[in-house]
């Protein structure tokens, strides 16, 4: 946290003096409510970051090609890019945002979660680097049995 605060103060001194110091944790549902009602991947990314990511091989998204159970789709996310935040979006459910991670000094960006996918679709992971740039990867997945019932 200290390092992040230091970096933001250094790089964005003018901005930093105008906004209150970042808390130890940030609930993006509270600070970015529009992200969670967005129904489209690109729109969700725009509402969270305000810009368009660049596809990058350095962002790793590991998902099955075919998910037999859409209620339990395993998703692995990893990157070596020094990151500030990491976000997962998809286009199979009513809204696109799934999870947004804040990355800290001692965090390793190597996350696994299981998510619901109502039907076949695509997933996009966006990594916001400490350099301020957005990196992304998109993959498609076939869902045999939709998973918003369980």
């Amino acid at each position, binding site marked *: 946290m200290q390092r992040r605060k230091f970096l933001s103060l250094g790089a964005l001194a003018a901005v930093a003096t105008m906004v209150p110091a970042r808390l130890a*944790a940030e609930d993006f549902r509270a600070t970015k409510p529009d992200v969670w009602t967005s129904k489209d991947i690109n729109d969700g990314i725009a509402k969270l970051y305000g810009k368009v990511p660049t596809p990058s091989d350095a962002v790793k998204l590991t998902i099955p090609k075919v998910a037999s159970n859409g209620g339990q789709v395993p998703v692995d996310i990893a990157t070596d890019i020094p990151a500030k935040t990491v976000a997962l979006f998809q286009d199979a459910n009513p809204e696109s945002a*799934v*999870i947004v*991670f*804040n990355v*800290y000094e001692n*965090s*390793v960006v190597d996350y696994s979660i299981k998510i619901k996918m109502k039907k076949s679709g695509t997933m996009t992971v966006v990594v916001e680097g400490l350099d301020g740039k957005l990196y992304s990867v998109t993959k498609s997945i076939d869902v045999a049995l939709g998973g918003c019932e369980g």
Partner: protein
Amino acid sequence: MKIKSKLKDGVVETKVMASHEMTTYDIAEKKTGNREDANFITHITATINGKVVYEASTSQFLSKNPIFKFSFKGAKAGDVLNVSWVDRKGNKEDEKETIK
């Protein structure tokens, strides 16, 4: 909530198993007719020695009884990992795990 963690080569591999229905708005509407009955974990944090090592803002689209796997550095055996989550209705759960 159950936590499993293991220190290996300076990295603590952690698995947090939360017990939660993760009821989506659509399921709530189907079951009770009221979308506002939706309830799911909205925020989870893990801290060690007062420092946040994992934090996620989450949606209704995580699976029922979600499992959060993550890793972090900067901890040693004996340190205590604190994990807490809060859901849409304001329910909170906290759990501790000593790093082995």
